[in-house]
């Protein structure tokens, strides 16, 4: 069956903010989706409805509001199981964001399993959230961090990865599935297989991949997957950590407190069943429920079609931007090998200056190091400009970006 392209016009109607005017009357063109996406009305309404009608703390009370809130909260967990094809709800832990999810692994699994002299392998394209927790852990344990390099073409050096894996000292591989700067889609399938051949567990940073393409944890067979709701139509304040159950069962708790315990005595505590053992304190109930509506929205569209739309618009944008005089584009040339993220520079215009000029035209792009300073050093730039797309972006918006780039060149006299 032939799937039809996204009805972007119709989708845009679901996102109230897209009607917004900025800078005194300019139509908003939102191209900062890799940082955070906008939210459809169904998500905003789910949060609203919770507070208007059944706000309550969960899990521990028998009154009706608590039962309704608990059911809705747990319903999102079930939706996530379906969305990423996890084995069971026991494997889904709610965190604040991707960053907390990775830190949870570093604190809980990491401190129990990483010893002096061990190695953790990451890559040069990682976001700070997939670097700093491992720096802290390896410093504490006198272990070592290794970086797989990235080629000038934007692809990881898989041979370098293979070489690192030869060391018996490697105890963890932690990889972004999609670069938030280069857009590069990393061949994690293959890399996970390579790591597993050596018995090494793999964490996938899915902050950029899970929102933009189908991701199936059982097919991938990764041990850990982390991602953020706010980058996939959901509210701020919710992240997910998936962990394979056999690993999770052996992990010590992270945050101690209410809800993660079964019995507390003065000097000893029995921890709760999975996944609650890892969710200490009152959770972000409203936003987890809101996230459920975001998953429904994406499921309704279908992640294959999300991906197709992004390939289409990215191809168009790559063509147009690369035709601008003085432009350097970073990352793979082929749109099918990358997500909807395009980083670039023009002449000696600094990205912040470019973003300010874009903003004059109502265009929201991001500029800076994108929390990827190791990659910036590798590219030998201090910053890039970045346009990133989602289901509601149109080719007309790309055209608006292109005209504004001409205006920037005029202002900077290049």
């Amino acid at each position, binding site marked *: 069956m032939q799937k039809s392209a996204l009805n972007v016009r119709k989708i845009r109607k679901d996102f109230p903010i897209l009607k917004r005017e900025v800078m005194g009357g300019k139509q908003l063109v939102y191209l900062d989706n890799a940082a955070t996406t906008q939210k459809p009305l169904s998500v905003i309404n789910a949060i609203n409805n919770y507070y208007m009608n059944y706000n309550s703390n969960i*899990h*521990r*009370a*028998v009154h*009706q509001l*608590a*039962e309704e809130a*608990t*059911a809705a909260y747990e319903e999102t967990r079930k939706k996530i199981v379906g969305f990423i094809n996890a084995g069971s709800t*026991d494997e889904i832990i709610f965190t604040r964001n991707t960053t907390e999810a990775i830190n949870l692994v570093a604190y809980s699994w990491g401190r129990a399993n990483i010893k002096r002299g061990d190695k953790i392998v990451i890559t040069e394209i990682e976001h700070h959230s997939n670097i700093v927790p491992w720096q802290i852990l390896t410093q504490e344990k006198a272990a070592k961090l290794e970086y797989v390099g990235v080629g000038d073409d934007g692809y990881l050096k898989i041979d370098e990865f293979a070489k690192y894996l030869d060391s018996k000292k490697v105890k963890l591989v932690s990889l972004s599935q999609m670069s938030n700067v280069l857009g590069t889609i990393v061949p994690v399938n293959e890399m996970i297989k390579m790591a597993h051949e050596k018995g090494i567990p793999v964490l996938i940073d899915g902050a950029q991949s899970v929102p933009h393409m189908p991701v199936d944890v059982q097919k991938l067979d990764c041990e850990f997957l982390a991602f953020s709701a706010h980058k996939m139509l959901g509210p701020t304040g919710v992240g997910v950590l998936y962990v394979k159950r056999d690993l999770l069962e052996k992990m010590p708790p992270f945050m101690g407190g209410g*809800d993660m*315990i*079964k*019995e507390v005595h003065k000097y000893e505590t*029995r921890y*709760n*069943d999975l996944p*609650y053992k890892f969710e200490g304190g009152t959770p972000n109930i409203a936003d987890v429920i809101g996230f459920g509506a975001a998953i429904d929205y994406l499921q309704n569209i279908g992640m294959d079609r999300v991906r197709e739309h992004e390939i289409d618009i990215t191809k168009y944008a790559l063509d147009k931007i690369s035709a601008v005089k003085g432009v350097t584009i970073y990352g793979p040339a082929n749109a099918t090998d990358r997500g909807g993220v395009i980083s670039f520079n023009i002449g000696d215009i600094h990205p912040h200056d470019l973003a300010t000029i874009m903003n004059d035209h109502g265009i929201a792009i991001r500029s800076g190091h994108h929390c990827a300073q190791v990659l910036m050093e590798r590219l030998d730039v201090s910053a890039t400009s970045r346009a990133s797309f989602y289901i509601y972006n149109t080719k007309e918006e790309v055209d608006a970006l292109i005209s504004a780039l001409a205006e920037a060149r005029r202002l900077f006299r290049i």
Partner: protein
Amino acid sequence: MSDDIYREIILDHYRNPRNKGKIAGPDVSIHDSNPLCGDEIDIHMKIEGDKIKDIKFEGRGCAISQASASMLTEMVLNKQLTSVKDLTKDDILENIGLTNLGPARIKCALLSLKVLKLGMVKYYADRDPASAKKLQEDSRTL
């Protein structure tokens, strides 16, 4: 609704629990608690030739969890493990006559079944690992 729950028989089992106490030299002893409310149940069993020859429980908690435990012990005493193994959620709820509990209170009603299943997991661990595994899975759904 509460009128349907707190019937004479529930209050009777709550206030006069059957098979409450310990067993000398049990073959299996097992403890678990409901993290949602703190209800606790211990189950002790004597098993002979795959038959539950004796069963006693200790515990504290609400009328539903304690009455349900009391009724469960009556239900399985002198039964073959093979017949007890497959007891379901619905079997218990029907046995105690509470089929319209909300999700939080259902946990109370099923705590003793969960503990019983975990006890059988322990018993079967070496004897019949496949059954132990299945019972472990079962217990997760309660």
